């Protein structure tokens, strides 16, 4: 059975190691914070100027001067710090962030990502995505394997305007976990529970590499 958004978030949470500073994009990536194992100590960055994002506030704690990059009201933790946008992107470009998790409209088999613009439709802008993908040492993409219209989002080459070149390391979709094997294609690492290798191959337009038995994900 294909994973739902929570399933994708739970699977990504397993990738996270203690001691990491992490930037979570809007949507599924934001959900990942809810499924981190208790023992894993990480710090979440919000690119509008905060390290140490806390839970959403109680109704009496809401502060309009404290929001995340998705403009949601948030709280801070003990040990949090606040800073300007220039400092924040200095942190990002300077590769001080260990992991970036973000959504995508398309990923190519060499790790290109497209997630900021659909020509002819409204352009909302790239926000911080281009800085993040140009700089992150480790990028995981969270997305559906195929679009609503049934087209694969894992392609030989992106068809939409690019956000960044050769940057994605791993992709977690509703069907599979894959990593980019530079120069080779998408290496299939894990199947969603009950999803066959054939189904994943069918849903993947780019070159897919399958070696031996591909294990099923373990999701709690």
């Amino acid at each position, binding site marked *: 059975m294909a994973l739902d958004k929570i399933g994708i978030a739970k699977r990504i949470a397993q990738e996270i190691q203690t001691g990491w500073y992490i930037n979570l994009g809007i949507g599924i990536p934001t959900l990942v914070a809810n499924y981190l194992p208790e023992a894993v100590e990480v710090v979440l960055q*919000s*690119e*509008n*100027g*905060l390290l140490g994002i806390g*839970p*959403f*506030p*109680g*109704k009496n704690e*809401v*502060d*309009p*001067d*404290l*929001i*995340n*990059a*998705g*403009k*949601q*009201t*948030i709280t801070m933790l003990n040990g949090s710090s*606040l*800073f*300007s*946008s*220039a400092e*924040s*992107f*200095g942190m*990002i*470009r300077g590769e001080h962030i260990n992991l970036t998790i973000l959504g995508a409209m398309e990923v190519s088999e060499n790790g*290109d990502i497209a997630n900021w*613009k659909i020509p002819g439709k*409204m*352009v*909302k*802008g*790239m*926000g*911080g*995505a*281009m*800085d993040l993908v*140009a*700089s992150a040492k480790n990028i995981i993409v969270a997305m559906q394997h195929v679009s609503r219209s049934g087209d694969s989002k894992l392609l030989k080459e992106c068809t939409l*305007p*690019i*956000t*960044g*070149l050769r940057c994605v390391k791993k992709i977690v979709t509703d069907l599979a976990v894959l990593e980019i094997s530079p120069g080779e294609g998408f290496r299939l690492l894990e199947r969603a529970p009950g999803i066959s290798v054939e189904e994943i191959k069918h849903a993947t337009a780019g070159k897919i590499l399958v070696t031996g038995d591909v294990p099923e994900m373990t999701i709690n």
Partner: protein
Amino acid sequence: MINKVVENAEVAVRNIKDYNVIMLGGFGLCGIPENCITAILKLGVKGLTCISNNAGVDDFGIGLLLQTRQVDKMISSYVGENAEFERQLLAGELQVELLPQGTLAERIRAGGAGIPAFFTPAGVGTEVGQGKEVRTFNGKDYLLEFWLKADFSLVKAWKGDTAGNLIFKGTARNFNPMMATAGNITIAEVEELVPEGSLDPNQIHTPGIYVQKIFQGTNYEKRIEQYTTSS
């Protein structure tokens, strides 16, 4: 110390002219110069180029200046959630230059810090990189980007003193400190204006040297875009 206080927003903005380039602090609706925006509406100047991370919403922030058609061009990183913006853009009435958020922040910082150009990896191989100089350092490609400056920078702080020193609060800091450095004239509106000597010199976010005019703001709405609670 040099006293930068002016009476109110109307007095502060009155030298802004048609076709000026103005920077406006804020991320979304957080930390925006609400009083200055209202005063510019009243002033009625036209043809403005606005540099701001976002373009407000339909009926608040820079969205208000779009409604009155006072803005010819926006330089921003994210402009979602604004129907009037979309209409003007599609009708060709509004020029829009979209930049990566970090590039925008750094170009403004560079403008204030006397750095005419710098290299950044953001946007290499994308539309943003078209026509820009690319150079490779240690095997990685970077784009050459230039400083941004403004005729006027409008920033919003939490506390400020009569000498123009500013302290921001929470994530309302965002683009305000860099924009304060990059305006030929920087106007700061503050929630609390205090006498010089009231703020700890060690806690100042923006030194007064960058601020030409400061005033006590009024009636802050501080609208929340995504009211989200745990319960």
